[in-house]
């Protein structure tokens, strides 16, 4: 059993189940220890020739009743305690996911998905086990072990005291070897990690390895690591086996003591009368042996319990660290209660560098967008265009009044309101492994099928979808049909359009789409977006030529802005871009949408 800030409330939440389970366990343990009494009674009865059919029947019947009760009890504690552990597992997993939804872009940049998955799998399982088998073991050790010991003591305190000596020795020995075992365990884990790291690096860099014909060298290096794993594993197994065997030896020693000294006691007191408290009968010896037999499992459990506990604690620490991870992007206390956004945006001397970096990605951006305007943002790769919209989406925190939406500081507006008002077509066209329909309808809870088809048509992807095996029900992504870049892009556009947002942001959404298709989509958008703000980030001049306003960004700063005609007249850089792109078009004969 472990405790921690994030799991203690589970003990309260499921207190009833825990309690019932523990009570059932206690009763089962208590009843279990009556059976040895009965067996002992039978043996004594036979030995003293006092046993009759009736008495025997009664004994046997009692055993049957006990068995029934024990069976019910065992069922119950399993259902209660293991069942609860499953509930906790589910609850904790939900908590982890819920928290992961709150974490910022910065967190996900720094922490790769692969590592995060371990929280949900290995760590969670270790914690669950401590609730399940961990709880059982703790109470079994206490009840069964304690009660058995107590009854042994009552039966013959002298014998019990002597038998305790190896018991104490086991504990000391276990603690001692336990430390060594843990060390070897860590060494083994480390060796495994080394092997994983080596293998991963090797496979990532296989291109270079093949280029330098270093395969043989790498194989040799791997052999060394492989051998190291063998050594560390064997070392650990040695320690663990030593511990296991030693504990078994001690237990057997106790048994030997019992039959030796116990046998002696029976032999010594054979002359005494039946009712004499000093008499240690042969039946009592049998009972005593049985008591000890029930103690064995709890004793072995202690070692396992210690291991389980340390693993669970380590995992809980990791989970705790994750759950304690600060939520950076959150509404402050002074949030203005705005529910509707018009679409007036002002970039007010905006300068920004990514958290942890000193390089300014945006430098003194001054730019305003009026509601209903279609604005084009153009610039080279790495000029800062995407960062600009990331900030508009509140993916990072800003200083005061750097971006104003409808006159209000974006940092003071409710995040949900802003994001609700923005439709976003991302550069990477992330699509979920889900049906086309669900992907397009992603933004809303309730959407009619007609709306979905309508948006697909406006994004010029309806024709393609109709050719898919299941049309709109076709599953796309990892587990389904692989879409071409262009298809993904257009579905992405449909997804954003369906939201009918106050502000539409399209980040490089036409790169995989040919100019003809681009034109058709753009004209649909023009219609849909009348009187609504639209921001289009592009590489191609053709995409934004007709925008109300164009901003040319270079190295994080706006170097020119105006309409296309104005920029042609005023900006040599802009002119250059236009010329280049015209040439590009001529050379490449236009990019075709790969299918």
């Amino acid at each position, binding site marked *: 059993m472990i405790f921690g800030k994030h799991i203690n409330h589970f003990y309260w939440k499921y207190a009833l189940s825990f309690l019932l389970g523990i009570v059932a366990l206690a009763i089962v343990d208590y009843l279990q220890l009556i059976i040895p009494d009965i*067996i002992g009674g*039978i*043996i004594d009865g*036979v030995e003293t020739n006092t*046993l009759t*059919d009736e008495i*025997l*029947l009664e004994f*046997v019947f009692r055993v*049957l009743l006990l*068995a029934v009760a024990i*069976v019910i009890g*065992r069922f119950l504690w*399993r259902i209660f305690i*293991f*069942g609860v552990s499953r509930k906790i597992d589910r609850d904790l997993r*939900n908590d982890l996911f*819920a928290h*992961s*939804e709150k974490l910022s872009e910065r967190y996900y940049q720094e922490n790769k998905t692969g590592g995060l998955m371990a929280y*949900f*799998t290995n760590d969670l399982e270790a914690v669950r086990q401590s609730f399940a088998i961990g709880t059982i073991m703790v109470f079994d050790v206490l009840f069964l072990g304690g009660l058995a010991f107590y009854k042994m003591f009552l039966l013959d305190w002298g014998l019990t005291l002597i038998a305790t000596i190896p018991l104490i020795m086991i504990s000391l020995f276990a603690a001692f070897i336990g430390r060594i075992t843990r060390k070897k365990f860590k060494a083994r884990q480390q060796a495994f990690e080394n092997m994983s790291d080596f*293998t991963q690096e090797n*496979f*990532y*860099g296989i*291109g*270079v390895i*093949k*280029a*330098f014909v270093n395969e043989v060298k790498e194989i040799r290096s*791997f*052999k060394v690591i492989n051998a190291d*794993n*063998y050594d560390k*594993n064997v070392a650990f197994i040695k320690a663990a*086996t030593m511990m296991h*065997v030693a504990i078994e030896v001690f237990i*057997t020693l106790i048994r*030997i003591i019992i*039959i030796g000294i116990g*046998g*002696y006691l029976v032999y010594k007191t054979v002359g005494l009368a039946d009712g004499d408290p000093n008499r240690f009968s*042969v039946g009592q010896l049998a009972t005593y042996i049985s008591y000890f037999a029930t103690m064995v499992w709890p004793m072995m459990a202690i070692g396992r319990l210690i291991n389980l506990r340390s693993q669970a604690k380590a995992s809980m620490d990791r989970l705790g660290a994750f759950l304690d991870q600060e939520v950076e992007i959150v509404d402050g206390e002074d949030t203005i209660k705005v529910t509707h956004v018009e679409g007036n945006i002002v970039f007010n001397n905006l300068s920004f560098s990514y958290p942890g970096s000193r390089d300014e990605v945006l430098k003194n951006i001054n730019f305003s967008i009026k509601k209903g305007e279609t604005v084009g943002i153009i610039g080279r790769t790495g000029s800062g265009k995407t960062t600009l919209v990331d900030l508009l989406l509140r*993916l990072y925190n800003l200083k005061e009044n750097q971006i104003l939406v409808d006159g209000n500081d974006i940092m003071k507006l409710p995040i*949900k309101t802003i994001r609700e008002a*923005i439709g*976003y077509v*991302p550069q990477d066209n*992330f699509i979920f*492994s889900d049906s086309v329909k669900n992907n397009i309808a992603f*933004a809303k809870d309730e959407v009619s099928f007609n709306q979905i088809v309508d948006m697909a048509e406006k994004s010029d992807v309806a024709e393609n979808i109709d050719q898919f095996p299941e049309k709109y029900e076709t599953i796309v992504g*990892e*587990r389904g049909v*692989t879409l071409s870049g262009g298809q993904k892009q257009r579905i992405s556009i449909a997804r954003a359009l369906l939201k009918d947002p106050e502000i539409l942001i399209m980040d490089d959404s036409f790169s995989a789409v040919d100019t003809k298709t681009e034109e058709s989509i753009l004209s649909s958008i023009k219609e849909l977006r009348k009187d609504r703000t639209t921001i289009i980030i592009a590489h191609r001049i053709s995409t934004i030529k007709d925008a109300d306003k164009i901003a040319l960004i270079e190295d994080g700063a706006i170097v020119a802005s105006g309409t296309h005609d104005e920029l042609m007249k005023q900006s*040599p850089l802009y002119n250059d871009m236009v010329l*280049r792109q015209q*040439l*590009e078009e001529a050379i*490449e004969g236009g990019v075709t949408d790969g299918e």
Partner: protein
Amino acid sequence: MANKVKNDYIDIDSVRLRKMSDGQIIKRLFIYVKPFIKQLIFAIIMVLLLVGLDILAPLLFAEVINQLSADQINEQTFTNIIIIVGIYFLTMIVSAILSYKQTMLLQKTGQKIIFKIREDTFNHIETLSTAQFNKVPVGKLVTRVTSDTNTLNSLYTDVIVNLFRNSLTIVAVFFTMLFLDIELTAYICIVVPFVFIASFVFRKYARLVYRRIRYHISGINAFLSEHLSGMRIIQIFNRETFKLNQFKQKNNDLYKSNYFQTFINAIYRPLMYFLYAIALVLVLWIGGKKAMVGALEIGILFAFTDYIRRFFNPIEDLAEQFDVLQSSFISGERIFEILDTLPEIVNAPDAIELTEVKGEIEFRNVWFAYLGEDWILKDVSFIVKSKQTMAFVGATGSGKTTIMSLIVRNYDIQKGEILVDGINIKKIKIESLRSKVGQMLQDVFLFSGTVESNIRMGNDSLVESDIIEAAKYVNADRFIERLPEKYQELVRERGNNFSAGERQLLSFARTVLRKPSIMILDEATANIDTETEELIQESLKKMMNIGTMIIVAHRLSTIQHVNNIAVMQKGKIVEIGNHQHLLKLKGLYYNLYQLQYDKATRKEVKEINI
């Protein structure tokens, strides 16, 4: 590299339909066990002995009880007890030693088997071609080598051993009981069929729910993996609540399956206990009556109560081995799948080694497609004479990088020939070919280690001065000397602690160190600071003197020094010649030149000296 091929990403683990039968997997695994068959047999013999000794203990107790229940208790009784205790003590020692030795033998053997499987798996993966690597996520390949082999291990060490021990125990206990009292054993046998029925039914449900659980787990994991990567989109679209609910639902489905498994176990285990209790009751009743009339020794009666426990426990254990067995088989299948994948690029049986390489490269009517007939190169022909430099230019996707890949046989071409010194590269041993070609790829991959180890690339016959000389030759020494640890500076995260320019220089250094006769350079397109840019250009000039060089060029300065330029468009060479010649053509090269290479100057072309 092959961006197109990456779309064929096979998520080979998400839908794991078992293609190999249990029997096939066992057969394959057995091949690895064969060398150690002697050890295994020895271990089994020890297990046999241990089981035997285990069976002895209740008998010893029984004898003590018998002695103490006899009508005549005297000194002889006590002596007998001492003897029994002595025997017990001896068996304890022997058991302990046997137990330790047997476990160690078995585990060590298991580890040796894993060692071999791991070695084979890793070595085999090393032989696969780059294209084959691109089809599978690296993580999955790593799992094959690391975790799957581990899971297999538990098959040998836990499952098989327990199988033996449990089966042996059941048999041994049964015969012992039979030997001690046939009538009692017969009564116990009444219960046995029920035990088997219960275990059989349990196993069926256990299998069912296990599959269900695995299905839900992989569903949740796929969901998590995807949604953690796409958290940005979820947040931007304000769909956190929606997705949380979706997740909760999946999670709940998993919970239900898990709960069902708990339920099944909650019935099975207590049920087995109940059957044991029935057997106990029978033993006490029948045995008790017999003991009353002296037809059965009391000690034996007591021993029976112990034996029935030892009889039932292994049966329960056997029924529960299922989970471990299944995951072992799955792991086994994954490993064999990889081992069965043949490398695509192999040496011809009569392949030769290159000795003196002059460095003439020729492409003759080469056609190449990564997939099917989606031609990346269409009838490409050119010759680069020894020690000459040729640059390839053209728009993205025109085929330039592919040509580099083909020279070193990362892929095999479908039509045409590629010749080095007049020999078709398919007739040259791959290792020989690649060792003569220095490859400087666009994204420089550095390995964890030091700057020095990354230049040395495993060649232990070189001394430090060789390394430094190479670095100096390519102008890399300047930035290296500025590093805190200089050549011993640690390389982290695949070289991310170095700038793109610095990484390019390091890749030059490690290439020239091998004194290649042919060099291939895929120029970095990333922004490189001017100072490093100059160093790179200088060292390129020097390197062009070492041997034949083929460059995928993006920089004006690079192009101006080469002997020949080939202009590619959509997989074909459309213009070829030197810089001046091509400019005069006022064709594609002329346009490209204006387009990309004039960025710095922004002058009109006619101002450049022709």
